[in-house]
Each structure stands twice: as C-alpha cells, then as structure tokens.
C-alpha cells in the first residue's frame, strides 16, 4: 500500500516540475525543473523496482543519478560559455 502512496506522490511532483519547465519563464527555472525531474525519476525508479518485484534493478537508478549530475554541469558550462561570448561581443561593440 505504501508503494501506491509514494508512487502517486512522486508522479504529482513530477507533473508540477514539468509545469515549471514548460512555463519557464527564465532559463534558470527550466534548468532547476529539469534537475528536479531527474531527481524524481531516480526516486520513482527506485520505488518502481520494489513495486514490480525486481529490487536487483536498483543499480539503474545509480546511472540515472549520474547522468543527471553530469547533465546539469553541462548546462552550467553552456551558460558560462554564452556569458563569456556575449561579454566579448559587447567589448567589440564598444
């Protein structure tokens, strides 16, 4: 029974995070929402592994967490590069 409650709760938070990712309005909202969705997916996977009776699949959740971490760093790097480029362009413009 507890699994049902947990799964429903996680699904609801996922829907909320998705709403934020869709609405934005700033890119940082989206990045945060994506990160949160990633975390929720890791949790959901862990719960689902028990729910469908295959706890030996928990190591999948590890991969998800890993990918999520690297993905967010890549996004941050993207912004750093973008900021530097627009700085350089401003300098050229002067």
């Amino acid at each position, binding site marked *: 029974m507890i699994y*049902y409650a947990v*799964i429903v709760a996680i*699904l609801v938070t*996922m*829907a909320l995070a*998705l709403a934020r*990712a*869709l609405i*934005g309005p700033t*890119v940082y909202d*989206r*990045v945060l929402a*994506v990160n949160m*969705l*990633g975390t929720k*997916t890791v949790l*959901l*996977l862990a719960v*689902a592994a028990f729910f*469908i009776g*295959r706890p*030996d*699949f928990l*190591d*999948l959740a*590890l*991969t*998800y967490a*890993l*990918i*999520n*971490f*690297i*993905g967010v*760093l*890549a*996004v*941050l*790097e*993207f912004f*750093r*590069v*973008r900021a*530097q*480029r627009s700085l*350089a362009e401003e300098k050229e413009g002067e």
Partner: protein
Amino acid sequence: MTVFTVFFIIFLLTLMVITALAIVQTKNLFAAAMLSGIFSLMSAMIFFLLDAADVALTEAAVGAGISTVLFLGALALTAENERAGTAGRAAALAVVTVITAVLVYATFDMPRLGDPNAPAQLHVAPWYLEKTPEYIDVPNVVTAVLASFRGYDTLGETFVVFTAGIGVLFLLGKAPVGQPKVSPAMTFAGKTGLRHYQIPRVVGRLLIPFILLFALYVQFHGDYSPGGGFQAGVIVAASVVLYALLEGEEQARQALPAWLLRLMAATGPLIYGFTGVACMLLGGNFLDYSVLAHDPVHGQHYGILVIEAGVGVTVTGVLISIFHSFAARGAK
C-alpha cells in the same frame, strides 16, 4: 499488469505527449534540448515498467545524457533561438492527420498490452527464453540474444557507431574557413571549464573513479544484470565529459589524446569482427562462438565477453571523439 500499473503508465505517457508538444512549440532551442532530455527520462521510466530494463538504462544514458551534451555543444556553435517559424504547415498537418488515422485504425486489431497469447510472445521469443540456459547459460536473456543469437545485428550496430564517429571526425576535422576564431576559453568546456567553481569540482573529482568502477561493473556484469558494452562505453564517455567540464577540454584531451581515441574507435569493431573470423577459422560459422572452447557453452561465454569488450572500446572511443570535435570547434 495490474490496473494500477496501467494507470501509472498512462499518466507518464500523457506527460510525454505534453512534453513533446512543448518541444515542438518552443522557439528557444535550449529549452527544446532540455525538454527532450526530460522526454527521454520519462520514456526510460516507461521502458522500465514495460520490463525492458536494458533499454531503460540505455535510453537514459543516451537520450538524457549524451544527446543533451551533444545538443548543447552544437547550440554553443550555432544559434540559441529559432528565427523562422514554419512553412507548409497545412500540407504537413494534412499528412500527419492521414498517417495518424491509419495508425489508430490499425491499433484496433492489435494484441492488448501484456497479452500472453499475442503472436509476438508465441513464436521465437519462448525459444530464446527456453534455450538460453542450455546454449548460452547467462541469466540476462537480452544479452544472450543481443550478443549471440542476433550477434550479427550487434556487429552492424557497432559499425553504425563507428561510422558516426568517422563521420563527425571527417566533417569537423576540416578547419573552418573565414570564421572569426574565438579564444579557447569561449568554446564549450574550453581551457578551464568549471575549474573556478569549487563545489562541483571537488564533488566531481571524487566521483570520477567511482564512475569508472561502475562502468566496469556495467561492462562485465552485463551477463547478469542490465548492461553491457554499449552502456559501459557511454558511462566511460560520460566520465570523460565530466572531467572535461571540471578541468577544461584541453586537460581531458591531454589525458586521452586524439590518436588514442581514434585507435580505440577502430580497434573495437576489429575485435568484434575478428572474433567472428576466428570462429570461422576454427571450423564454425561466422560469429559461432561455441567453437572457441572445448565446451560450446564456455565458448559462448568467451565470445560474448570479447565482443562486449569490443563494443565498449568502440563506443568509448567514438563518443569521446565526437564530444571533443564539437567542443574544440572554432578555437584558435
């Protein structure tokens, strides 16, 4: 397939449709790339619920991991926003409507989800489940089919990866002409990456050895649990991407130089292919691993071990090469 699971899947599928609509609708390509990462995570979750654990692992690593990084690398080089909108919208919508109608019409004769008497469950599939313990003797039937029963497909798949690798190296190996060159600090990951950000750096550096260890586990435990050469290669590549993000692309390139990556990309397919040729020389058919040892089942084990290693080496070499090609593009 309990009622609850069905609703669980339906809910996730609905979220996926919403995400897909948003991907098409948004003008911001960065947002579209982010949303397609979400889309991949959700579809991976559905694959997991539909008893395809290997696919769930791969889809998450590829769809949410590698393709997001590739999109970001490419967007850093092109443009972040769509300028023009659509063209021929009416014609496209008409075609779309017709094909959707055909497909939905076709669904009504389809076997229901989980139907044990569906034709797909009756013919070859039970044979694989029944014979794997006898002929191959690995617990993961997906690995057995992938590496042995349909090993020729997987050989082709390895060469698809290899082709993509040489394609990207070929296309981006030519220096851009007449382009304003930017300093390496302004390319993706570039010279320093996120070196000046302490928290990610400390955490990330601690993580890398564990990621590599985990990759080895995925590689060699693929017979027993979801995983295998392809997934392991993706994880190794992810760890190198992480290193490049933390320490700068130049550092990562020094750790694994371009010639070595190229060698890896080419050696992997050769390992796979020559395993098949060795089987031929030992009197079997191409890729018939059972001749590799006195006991056919042991032969299958050796064969699967070696070809999975070949796949892992290929994927690692190709994906890291591709990442570097995008990241270093346009630098002085």
